[in-house]
């Protein structure tokens, strides 16, 4: 009998906490589904009397170009940085050279720094690259993608290195005895084994780059080139946009990574823990 009361209390605590975690999403959905006439501060928690997609349509119209910018940013940047991480991780795990033990922690430090400490020269360099080589890096999605690829090297290298450390060295030694070099071992043995690690890293990078704000707001000043988080910040900070539209917009900006989480949460969690725990 005591046991059952304990269980009941346990579930009561967990359900209360669950409601707390869902509160912001409820508010975004609930008010996003109301029309401008119906939305009011005093009725924030009351469900809409008439469900309408007006707010979402309006938010989508305003954010569509920026959502597309984010897609054009995230897809290439996530794919390229995964391959860079895979190759680095393979070398560091299976072909360690002298000095690798020093290089690795030096690389890792790059994922902890406050990006403010590189921002001024970064912006200058992107502008110079524009003047010198007529490359449109400053203010463009391409420049932002480059930035995310470079600053993604530490985390992607870390995750792949730890993953490849679990691949038995005997497998690789056997291939080398058969005359396979570094490249062929990677292509024929390591790469086919890498699918789970690629899934983890791509999901991690997609989420990070989609959600990133500081680089985006400093590097893309032209609204037409801005990723969705910057556009959302402008929308939500605007006095003239109705707040039901702001809430619908916030949900639209969150939706892609939310869906990734809902369907691939297992891999998302692995990336999360890989980024925080060694091994």
């Amino acid at each position: 009998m005591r046991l059952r009361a304990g269980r009941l209390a346990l579930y009561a605590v967990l359900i209360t906490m669950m409601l707390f975690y869902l509160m912001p999403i409820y508010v975004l959905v609930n008010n996003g589904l109301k029309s401008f006439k119906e939305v009011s501060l005093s009725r924030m928690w009351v469900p809409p009397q008439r469900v309408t997609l007006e707010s979402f349509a309006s938010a989508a119209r305003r954010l569509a170009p920026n959502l597309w910018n984010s897609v054009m940013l995230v897809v290439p940047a996530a794919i390229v940085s995964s391959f860079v991480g895979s190759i680095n991780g393979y070398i560091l795990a299976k072909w360690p050279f002298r000095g690798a033990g020093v290089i690795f922690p030096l690389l890792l430090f790059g994922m902890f720094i406050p990006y403010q400490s590189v921002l001024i020269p970064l912006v200058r360099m992107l502008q110079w690259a524009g003047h010198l080589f007529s490359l449109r890096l400053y203010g463009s999605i391409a420049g932002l993608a480059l930035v995310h690829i470079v600053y993604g090297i530490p985390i992607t290298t870390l995750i792949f290195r730890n993953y490849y450390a679990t691949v038995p060295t005997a497998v690789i030694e056997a291939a080398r005895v058969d005359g396979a070099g570094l490249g062929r071992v990677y292509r024929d043995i390591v790469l086919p084994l890498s699918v789970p690690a690629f899934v983890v890293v791509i999901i991690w990078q997609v989420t990070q780059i989609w959600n990133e704000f500081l680089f985006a707001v400093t590097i893309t000043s032209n609204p037409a080139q801005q990723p969705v988080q910057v556009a959302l910040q402008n929308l939500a900070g605007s006095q003239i946009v109705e707040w039901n539209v702001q809430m619908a917009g916030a949900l639209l900006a969150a939706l892609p990574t939310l869906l990734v989480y809902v369907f691939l949460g297992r891999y998302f969690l692995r990336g999360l823990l890989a980024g925080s725990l060694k091994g």
Partner: protein
Amino acid sequence: MRSTGDRVLPFLIVLPSVIAVGVFVYGFIAWTVFASLTNWNSFAPDFSFAGLRNYINLFDTPRFLIDLHNTGVFTLAFLIGCLAIGLLLAILLDQRLRGEAIFRNVFLFPMSISFIVSGTAWQWLLNPSTGVNLLLESVGLGALRSAWYTEPRIAIYSVVIAAVWQMSGFTMAMYLAGLRGISDELREAARVDGASEVQLYRRVILPMLRPVTVSAVIVLGHISLKIFDLVFAMTGSGPAFSTDVPGIFMFETTFRGNRFAEGAAIAVVMLVMVAVVVVPYLIYGAREEADA
């Protein structure tokens, strides 16, 4: 058995990444430190040497001192909130419950959305004339109504609530991974020795989770020392700079005020704060691996 090519080639393959990080991380940090020592405080670059004047001015600026204080308060409250809630949720979820996956997924989902989105949502939730205050009233807890981020004395804690909402599930996941690594045999052995459930946790399990706590403090701590987006989206500097943090001050000084040398000095102070937390951790990790 290795040929010369086998020895040089691995290094050459990693070299482009090493150079990229060398330039974009270490080179740019060096450049920022250099800029912080110049007189470049208008739109036109001026690289004449200013010594430590920007730093001296900075530590004489009330706003910056408020920022450091806010960062301290925020970091402490954020760490305590995340560790306490994260540990509690992990222990509760470790009780072989039905529906564990559902709870776990709900607690963790805020990690997948951006600080800008959560800042937008929490700005409405903690708006004094609606949101949480309405909710408190409707359940008879009207006495707990608060001015939240409009009241300078408590404004920073409003941001803490949003940040804990976003990151406590992650802390839970770390603890849960740690708990799952503790064998059932060990728990059974403690029970056979007559330990109650509370004793089991206090004497056996919590001490074993200490490494997890260390990792969590490093990860959460470095996030909170450089927090920017969440504050930017939710409250900005707040009334009387009550929610201002160095990240916001640096951004405004540099990119709104064109005072680049001063902005660089703020950035260097932020870097030093983060490095103090992270560098010992990285060195420790590297040593441990070298020993293994």
